[in-house]
C-alpha cells in the first residue's frame, strides 16, 4: 500500500504542476484526498504492519496521520478560497498546490518513519516544501521570513543529525548498529550516559525548530506572520505534530535509561521558558497572526511540561497536541476571513466583527473559549490533566508560575479578541469591507466540535491508541 501511496502522490504532484486547467486541478486534488484517506484507514486497520522496511503504522503515527488527513481536507478547501479571493494566476496556483501535496506527503512519511534517519530525511523535506508555501505572497517580509525559516531549520536539522550521530556512537559501543525505533531501547541500557545526554540535547534543540518550542521558536512565529493563513494552520498544527513526534520518539527511546530524570529537567525548563516567552510577547503583540503564533508556543510549552512530569502527563501531552491541532487550525482559517473583511492583520485597525460577519464572529468567540481552555472546550480536559501530573510529580512552584502566566495570556487574548469582536474600529473605510459567505465557516465549527467531542467524551479506540503509544514509557 505504502509504495502505491508514494508513487501516486509523485504522479499527482507532477500532474498538478504541469496542469493549468482549473477543473483538472480540482480533480487531481480530490484524487489526492481520496488517496490520503485510504492510507489513513488502511494504516488504522493494519496497525504495526511494516511497510517498505523503513515505515510502520505505529499507534502515535496513526493518530497524527488521522489528524493530518482531516486537516488536509479543510486546508485544501480554504487554500482554494484564499487563492480565488486573491485572483492568483494559474501558474502560481499550480506551484502552491504542488508544494502543498508534497508537504502533506512528507509529513505522512515523517509520521510513519520507523528509522530515526528516515524521520530526519523527511523532516528536512517538510522544511523545503513549506518554504515554497511561506514565500507564496512574494513580498519583502515573506522573503525575510522564508530565508530565516529555511536557514535556521537547516541548521537545526543539522544539530539533530549530530544528535543522531551521538546516539549511534552510544549504540555502537553496545554492539548494535540498527537505528530503528523498535530496536534502540533494548541496547541503550548499558550505554554511556554522556553520549545519551549529548544526543538528547542536540536532538531536542534540532527538532524544536519544527515543534516551535523554546530555544528555536522564533522562526515559526516569523513564518506565521507572512504565510498564507491556510498554511499557517498547517505550520501551527500538523508540522508542530511532526516536531512533537520526533521529540517524543527521542524521549521514549531513552526513557528507560538512567538519564530519564535529567531529561525531565531539561524538558521542564524548555516548557516553562516557552510559556514565559509567549507570555511576555503576547502582552504587547499587535499582529493577529503573531498573537496566535505565540499562543501555539504556549501550548507547546504545556505539552513539554506534560511530557516532563510523567504519569498521566504522557497521555495528556498527546491528547493536548491532537486537540490543539483542531482548534488552532480553525483559528487560522477564520483569520483568513478576518483578513478578507478588514484587509489587515493589525488588531488595532479591526473591530466590531459581529456586525460585519456574524457567523465568523461566533467562530472567533468559540475559538476564544477553546484556546483558553474554558470548560466546554476539550482542551480544558488535557490542560487539567497536565496540571494534575505536575502536581503529582511535586512541581508545585512550577505549577504556580504556569498558572500565573496562563492568567496573563488569558487576559491578553481576551483583550485582543474582544476588541476585534465588539469595539467599534477607529477610522475604518466601511465601503472597503467585503462580505463573507457564511458557509465558509462551516469547517471551523466542525473542527471545534471535534475538539470538544474528543476532549469530553473520547471514543475508546482513540484512548486505546494513545495508551498504546505510551506503553513503553515508565509509569
Amino acid at each position, binding site marked *: 500500500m505504502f509504495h502505491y501511496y508514494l508513487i501516486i502522490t509523485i504522479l499527482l504532484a507532477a500532474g498538478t504542476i504541469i496542469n493549468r486547467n482549473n477543473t483538472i486541478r480540482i480533480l487531481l486534488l480530490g484524487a489526492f484526498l481520496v488517496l490520503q484517506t485510504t492510507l489513513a484507514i488502511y494504516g488504522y486497520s493494519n496497525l504495526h504492519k511494516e511497510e517498505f522496511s*523503513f515505515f510502520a503504522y505505529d499507534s502515535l503515527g496513526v493518530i497524527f496521520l488521522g489528524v493530518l488527513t482531516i486537516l488536509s481536507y479543510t486546508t485544501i478547501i480554504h487554500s482554494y478560497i484564499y487563492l480565488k479571493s486573491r485572483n492568483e494566476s494559474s501558474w502560481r496556483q499550480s506551484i502552491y498546490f504542488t508544494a502543498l501535496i508534497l508537504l502533506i506527503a512528507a509529513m505522512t512519511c515523517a509520521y510513519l518513519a520507523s528509522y530515526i534517519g528516515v524521520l530526519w*530525511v523527511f523532516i528536512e523535506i517538510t*522544511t523545503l516544501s513549506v518554504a515554497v508555501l511561506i514565500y507564496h505572497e512574494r513580498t*519583502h517580509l515573506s522573503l525575510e521570513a522564508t530565508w530565516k525559516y529555511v536557514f535556521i531549520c*537547516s541548521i537545526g536539522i543539522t544539530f539533530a543529525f549530530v544528535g543522531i*550521530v551521538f546516539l549511534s556512537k552510544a*549504540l555502537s559501543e553496545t554492539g548494535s548498529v540498527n537505528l530503528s525505533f523498535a530496536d534502540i531501547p533494548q541496547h541503550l541500557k548499558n550505554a554511556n550516559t554522556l553520549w545519551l545526554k549529548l544526543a538528547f540535547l542536540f536532538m531536542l534543540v534540532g527538532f524544536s525548530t519544527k515543534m516551535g518550542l523554546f530555544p528555536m521558536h522564533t522562526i515559526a512565529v516569523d513564518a506565521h506572520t507572512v504565510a498564507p493563513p491556510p498554511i499557517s494552520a498547517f505550520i501551527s498544527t500538523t508540522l508542530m505534530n511532526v516536531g512533537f513526534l520526533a521529540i517524543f520518539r527521542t524521549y521514549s527511546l531513552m526513557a528507560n535509561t538512567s538519564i530519564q530524570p535529567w531529561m525531565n529537567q531539561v524538558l521542564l525548563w524548555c516548557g516553562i521558558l516557552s510559556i514565559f516567552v509567549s507570555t511576555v510577547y503576547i502582552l504587547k503583540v499587535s499582529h493577529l497572526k503573531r498573537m496566535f503564533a505565540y499562543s501555539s508556543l504556549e501550548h507547546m510549552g504545556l505539552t513539554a511540561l506534560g511530557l516532563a512530569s510523567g504519569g498521566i502527563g504522557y497521555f495528556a501531552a498527546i491528547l493536548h497536541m491532537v486537540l490543539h491541532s483542531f482548534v488552532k487550525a480553525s483559528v487560522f482559517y477564520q483569520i483568513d476571513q478576518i483578513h478578507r473583511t478588514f484587509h489587515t492583520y493589525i488588531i488595532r485597525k479591526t473591530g466590531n466583527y459581529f456586525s460585519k460577519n456574524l457567523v465568523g464572529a461566533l467562530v472567533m468567540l468559540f475559538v476564544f473559549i477553546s484556546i483558553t481552555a474554558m470548560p466546554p472546550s476539550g482542551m480544558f480536559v488535557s490542560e487539567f490533566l497536565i496540571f494534575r501530573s505536575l502536581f503529582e510529580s511535586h512541581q508545585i512552584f512550577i505549577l504556580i508560575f504556569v498558572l500565573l502566566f496562563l492568567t496573563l495570556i488569558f487576559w491578553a487574548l481576551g483583550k485582543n479578541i474582544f476588541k476585534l469582536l465588539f469595539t467599534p474600529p477607529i477610522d475604518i473605510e466601511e465601503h472597503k469591507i467585503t462580505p463573507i459567505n457564511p458557509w465558509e465557516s462551516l469547517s471551523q465549527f466542525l473542527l471545534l466540535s471535534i475538539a470538544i467531542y474528543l476532549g469530553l467524551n473520547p471514543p475508546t479506540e482513540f484512548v486505546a491508541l494513545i495508551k498504546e503509544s505510551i506503553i513503553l514509557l515508565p509509569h
Partner: protein
Amino acid sequence: MIHVILITFLITLFYMAIANRMLTYIKILAFQGLLLFVIVFIQLNEINTINLILILLETIVFKSLAVPIFLNFILKRNKITREAEPFVPNFVSLIITTVIIVFTILLVNSINDPYLDKIFFIVALSTLFTGVYIIVSRRKILTHVMGYLVIENGVFILSLAVGSEMTMLVNIGIMLDIFVSVLVLGIFMNRIGNTFEEMSVDNLTNLKD
C-alpha cells in the same frame, strides 16, 4: 598520516577566521572538500565500488566543485563586494577560534571513553562551533551560507569519527537533502540580491514585535 590531514583541516579554520576576501572563503571550502575526501579514503578499510562512488560524489563533486562554483556564480551575479565585512576585527576572530579549539580539546579530554578517537572528535566539534561562530560574526548572507557549509563539514567528520554505517538509502537521502537545501538557499539568496540593494542581514530585521 590521517592526523596530519586532520590538523591541516584545523589550520584551514584559522585561515577562514582571518580571511578578508570572499573568494578566499570559497577556495577554503573547496580545499576542505578535498581534505575530507582524503580522510575518508584513508579511513576506508575495504573499498566497495558503490561506497567509493558515493563518497566521491559527496566530497569531490559536491563539496569541492559544485558548491564553490555555485557560490562563485552567486557572487558574480549579485555583484557582491569582495570584502567579507565581519562585525569584529580579524584578530579577535582568530582569538575566538583559538578559544573554541582549546575549549573542545578540554571538553573531549574530559570524556573518559576508551573507544574514542580524540583527534577526530576535536576537529569535528571545533569545526562545528567555528561554523556557528562564522554565522553570527559575519554580516553578509553569503558568508552565513558558508558558515552552514562549514557546520556540514564538521558533521561529516563527526559521522566518520563514530564510524557506524547508516543504511545506504538513508545516506543518499541525507546527501540529497543537503544538496537541495543549499540550492534552495541559493535561490532565495538571488531573490534577496534582486530585492535589496545589498545582500546583508541588516535588511532582514523587519519582522519583530
